[in-house]
């Protein structure tokens, strides 16, 4: 078992003919993901590596029965792509695109609240259920099937964590990057509750960073609802206030969003805090 995706998930790629889209489509295919369709407006009827390309998501879904979408379109069109997928009935939307304006995302968020679909991202590495399905840009080879659920706001930082887990012999049930933007689709709590309900997930790693209050809210949720062990890490303790640390959402505004407050919330709510990233694999080995 796993959460949100498995070997039966049928994926379409929006922006499949672009540089990034075609490169990562091939990587996902090589990993074993069932990519059934691509969408690039104006290129309907073409094929990419044998995958049929459609003009619209609605047609792609109708023709292929795709139930998940992977989005690589440029930021000005990112919000539109998410809404197109949602309207076409895709149940899982993974938006890799970095740089979508926040005003677009708040509108998308309200729009999605009236649809029954899940958005992961934007500005995220995607989701992977090791040895079954990879919908995203993460390096597949560092992952291993197992029982640790990983959820993170970051990309490469997640790879670092997963790599250490795998080297310690700890495989993963599902790994999800929820994205580094201030407004995103799926949040920590959505993922934590799914891991809690998944019998194959025995423990969780939660990787947060400065900015906002999602980690604090997740910590309170864990205290109240999660029975499985959780290891937490926060990046950005040395970040100066008022500066955007690469991710649009990684910013300390006044006194809110500091790393110290997040670590305090973790500790107060029974989360095992890892204070040194170099040791997160070993800490998980001891706890799980």
């Amino acid at each position, binding site marked *: 078992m796993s959460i949100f995706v498995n070997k039966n998930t049928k994926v379409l790629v929006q922006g499949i003919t672009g540089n*990034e889209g075609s490169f990562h489509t091939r990587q996902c295919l090589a990993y074993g993901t069932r990519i059934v369709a691509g969408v690039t407006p104006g290129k309907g009827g073409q094929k990419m590596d044998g995958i049929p390309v459609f003009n619209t998501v609605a047609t792609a879904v109708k023709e292929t029965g795709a139930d998940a979408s992977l989005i690589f379109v440029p*930021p000005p069109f990112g919000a539109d792509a998410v809404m197109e997928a949602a309207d076409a009935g895709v149940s899982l939307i993974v938006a890799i695109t970095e740089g979508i304006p926040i005003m677009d995302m708040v509108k998308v968020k309200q729009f999605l609240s009236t649809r029954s679909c899940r958005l992961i991202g934007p500005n995220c590495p995607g989701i992977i259920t090791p040895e079954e399905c990879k919908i995203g840009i993460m390096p597949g080879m560092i992952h291993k099937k197992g029982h640790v659920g990983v959820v993170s706001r970051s*990309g490469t*930082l997640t790879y670092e964590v997963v790599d250490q887990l795998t080297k310690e012999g700890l495989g993963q049930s599902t790994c999800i990057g929820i994205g580094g933007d201030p407004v995103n689709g799926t949040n920590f709590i959505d993922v934590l509750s799914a891991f809690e309900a998944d019998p194959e997930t025995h423990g969780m790693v939660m990787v947060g*960073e400065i900015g906002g209050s999602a980690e604090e809210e997740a910590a309170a949720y864990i205290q109240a609802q999660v029975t499985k062990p959780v290891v937490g890490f926060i990046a950005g303790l*040395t970040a100066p206030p008022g500066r955007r640390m*690469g991710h*649009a959402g*990684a910013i300390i505004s006044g006194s809110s969003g500091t790393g110290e407050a997040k670590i305090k919330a973790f500790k107060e709510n029974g989360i095992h805090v890892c204070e040194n990233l170099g040791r997160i694999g070993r800490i998980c080995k001891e706890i799980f």
Partner: protein
Amino acid sequence: MKIHEYQAKQLFAQYQVPVPDGRPAFTVSEAVTAAGELGGYPVVVKAQIHAGGRGKGGGVKLAHSAEEVEALAGQMLGMTLKTHQTGPEGRIVKKLFIEAGQKIEKELYLSLLMDRATATVVIMASRDGGMDIEEVAAKTPERIIKVHVDPLMGIQGYQLRQVGFDLELPKAAMKGFSSLLSNLYRFFVANDCSLVEINPLILTADDQVMALDAKVDFDSNALFRHKDLLALRDLDEEDPMEVEASTYNLNYINLDGNVGNIVNGAGLAMATMDIIKNAGASPANFMDVGGGASAEQVENAFRIILADPKVKAVLINIFGGILRCDVFAKGVVEAAKKTGVTVPVVVRMEGTNVAEGRQILADSDLNLTSASDLADAAQKIAAAVN
């Protein structure tokens, strides 16, 4: 992207948000001329820098005559203004704003910002204007008015009334306030702002409301659809190294430590800074070359870090995913050849094509220390600077 108060007020005026009459001035004589055009004294001479707390730092002063304007402008232009937001090094004042003095009946607070948790625009207001709003929120949260606006619906009449009544405005000021807030919301949405703050918003003796200060921050991700706003960027307010890095699409922030670092990915870059600190050293920067950096970008990143005189050692931490380790190694070697490396460099690489990457570095004759993992890298970098 931040802009100056005088620029924000010019934009406010275009959206019918009332502001006092004022003129920017870049020289003493321009300041005197501007004051003369305002139709009487006193006028306010305001230093224009991208930081709050200017009043307390001596950057906002009242002048009662042309001679006083001349003297104050002479003092302020070129001075280093230090506030709680500039850091100890302060900012050099290069621009002034000369504004007509106002008869203030009451000082209020009004701001609009994006609320991450609810994905709405939130209006914050308070009767305690002119003060540090975080302090008000911490000590007397009941004195903060908060109204959430659904971005699909826009601001509604009842919301305008709610804020106005909660601010306990006199009846005669209510219509003017509703119009101000409604126009301010229109400005916020039309220009993709992430923050608009007016502190203080003033109520005058004749029941007018107007913005006495103006702080505006735009969502950098949305600037592609606001080419006109790009002209408002003031490079004088930015670190020259950060400006250079931004031209190569590198996420770089200059800090005050002595360990330079280059990392791919923002989260890992932050964590790497933390590791440097944990090991007893201090990061000189934040540098995220991005997930899919080219050899040329890496070369520029390395060159920028090496050009920083406070850097005594460099830690390179790469987890190759999209960015392959061999591509990265080539960039490092090219930059080192061109710039010359005079400080110790510790390299930790993992991920895609790591063997090829390590080979390129080994074959390069560069004096690099390789680290087996993060813990090892932290120890080696601390040993190099301590």
